């Protein structure tokens, strides 16, 4: 126990001796948490539209004003040449082009049927799908308006109408920040924890100070614990700062209990730090440790369900995410913060995190060799 205390003293001194580290640990996450959530707005709006109007009739005008009146479309180009629109689309300025052919109004009234043409820039498939769906809805509404003007209203509406009512639970304002901020918090916590611990032991190896530890009677698990505990404390402090920012800057107050979040975060940090220490013991220099931890971090973060939905991944990738601690924490923190889930709902996640923590730390202790 006494050995551990001295080791802790040494580690803390080492960490706090470097002033830039302190700045990095505490200031960087704050800045990122203040800036990045503003970037994460995925709602498809402000689609740039180009309208090619060969008709110039009253109806085409009405359709155009109906489209521009919505918040989804920005009229970028109103032209009567298709090639101009094509050029704009090629350079990426325009997402969608609507062509209203000549005699649109006449055909509609006289022939009972008139076409319009949509050309969609489908490089981004999702954007194209949703954008064209919006536009078709607008055209359909316009069509209904026209029909209403020409047809004597019968006893009841001849048009079939299935009304779709949408309710948005847990986040009725559809505020994307409520979704992103807790997730980004997890990423920052992971980065601080994993990168600090991954470089730590290997740094001692590179500088040579590890020899001094190795000749002392310090036990392997003492050594690992001595490394683990300071970072664990720093991690929890980072989490607290992050939660404060979430509350002060974004007004996000967890619906569930803070205690649940801290319990899970404690377990999670153990797992992440264990992983970092493991990387640190099996590599020979800081460059290797850094590359490996970057690689893993990138995989964990990008496949953690933070930015893209895990459900959309192919089966094998979904199987890989079962080994991804970030995915569990992202899910848990969102459940607790937004839906108010409690211990009963996340017990499965906690058990898995516990297994991660035990295996990773055990492995780190095992692979730390006092003899070279």
């Amino acid at each position: 126990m006494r050995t551990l205390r001295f080791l802790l003293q040494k580690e803390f001194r080492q960490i706090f001796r470097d002033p830039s580290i302190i700045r990095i640990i505490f200031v960087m996450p704050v800045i990122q948490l203040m800036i990045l959530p503003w970037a994460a707005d995925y709602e498809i709006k402000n689609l740039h539209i180009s309208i090619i109007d060969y008709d110039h009739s009253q109806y085409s005008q009405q359709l155009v004003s109906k489209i521009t009146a919505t918040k989804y479309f920005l009229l970028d180009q109103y032209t009567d040449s298709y090639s101009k629109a094509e050029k704009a689309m090629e350079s990426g300025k325009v997402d969608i082009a609507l062509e209203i052919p000549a005699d649109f109004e006449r055909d509609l009234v006289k022939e009972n049927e008139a076409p319009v043409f949509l050309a969609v820039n489908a490089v981004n498939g999702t954007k194209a799908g949703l954008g064209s769906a919006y536009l078709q809805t607008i055209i359909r509404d316009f069509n209904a308006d026209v029909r209403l003007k020409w047809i004597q209203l019968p006893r009841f509406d001849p048009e079939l109408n299935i009304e779709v009512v949408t309710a948005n639970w847990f986040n009725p304002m559809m505020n994307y920040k409520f979704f992103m901020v807790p997730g980004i918090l997890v990423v920052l916590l992971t980065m601080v924890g994993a990168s600090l611990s991954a470089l730590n032991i290997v740094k001692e190896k590179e500088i040579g100070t590890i020899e001094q530890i190795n000749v002392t009677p310090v036990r392997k698990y003492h050594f690992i614990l001595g490394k683990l505990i300071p970072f664990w404390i720093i991690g929890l402090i980072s989490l607290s700062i992050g939660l404060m920012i979430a509350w002060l800057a974004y007004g996000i107050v967890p619906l569930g209990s803070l205690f649940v979040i801290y319990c899970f975060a404690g377990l999670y940090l153990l797992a992440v730090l264990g992983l970092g220490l493991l990387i640190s013991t099996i590599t020979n220099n800081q460059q290797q440790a850094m590359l490996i931890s970057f690689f893993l971090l990138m995989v964990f973060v990008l496949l953690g369900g933070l930015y893209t939905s895990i459900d959309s991944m192919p089966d094998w990738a979904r199987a890989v995410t079962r080994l991804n601690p970030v995915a569990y924490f992202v899910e848990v923190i969102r459940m607790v913060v937004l839906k108010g889930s409690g211990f009963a709902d996340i017990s499965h996640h906690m058990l898995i995190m516990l297994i991660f923590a035990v295996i990773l730390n055990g492995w780190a202790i095992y692979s730390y060799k006092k003899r070279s």
Partner: protein
Amino acid sequence: MRQFSSLVRKEFYHILRDKRTMFILLGMPIAQIILFGFALTNEVKNARIAIFDQSKDIATNTLISQISSSRYFDVEDNLHSYKEIEETFRKGSIKLAIVFPENFNNDLEHFNKAQVQLVADASDPNTASALSNYATSIIRDYEKRITNDRKLPYTIKTEMRMLYNPQLKGSYSMVPGVMAMVLMLVCTLMTAITVVKEKELGTMEILLVSPLRPLKIITAKAVPYLMLSIVNIATILLLSVFVLEVPINGSLLLLVFESILFTLTCLAFGLLISASTDSQQTAMFISLTGMFLPTIMLSGFMFPIENMPLPLRILSNIVPAKWYYSIVNAVMIKGADLTIVWKETLVLMGIMAFLLFLSIKKFKIRLA
């Protein structure tokens, strides 16, 4: 010149000696391109949904079978009460619940009107709105099919063409982003610690007392890594075309040229970090937080830049990955040539020159 070439040789020895690092540097892009290329998609599909059908008639049955056969939805649960909806949501597995009220078909046949309720788990607003939209359009299709049989007057027919990516493949917009990210990561990381490592190990002094100028030292450090990067560019392009099946519609030469330009920018950025920090740990942390998250979030491949507030839109202009991403997007998928991407290319060149200048400036010729 001889001094320079022996310095380059020294750097090569450094890299070649460390087989493990070499292996990681060359293997990492392969693993990442494959992993991210397949798994990252901002499409929403196979979302798990629940259905609460109080009507159980022919119309709801047809609709449900259409919904469950769509690639967007996996019907996982049949619910029996409103209370169950909230319970399943809280457990976290269901993203959308579709509620059909009683007498659905009856209402539809006799009044031409019926109602469907969509209850979305909006803790993820993006998925929620995408799913409601998909469900709505399935319902609209169903509606249209019945209406078409009746032939209404005054109909506007919409004809649609999806350009560049007719099958709406998600990977088309993702692959250029993944390319930018992987190149950025590998190249910046490679150089980020080369200078600072010498500082930490004390070999810097030897370099400083030599007659070599900072410009030469910096360039000599970048050359071997540039060669490694060219190998990486080749593997990344090959994997994108043959494994991820994204076509190169524009000129291959232009694409390679732009990739090398971007690589140089990243190497310069790494050198700047390296020259201005004192420990490898700090260098790593700066490249991690200063590059990783901003590249993902501000380069426009995950989140559309036009949606961001103005200060961030301005900020995104200094992220090199943003320019590279739009170049690759234009050249690879739309088949654009230099007349279209010259502006982006110039910006990228400017950023590179600036970073290189700054890192030479920051390179201190005296030890503290």
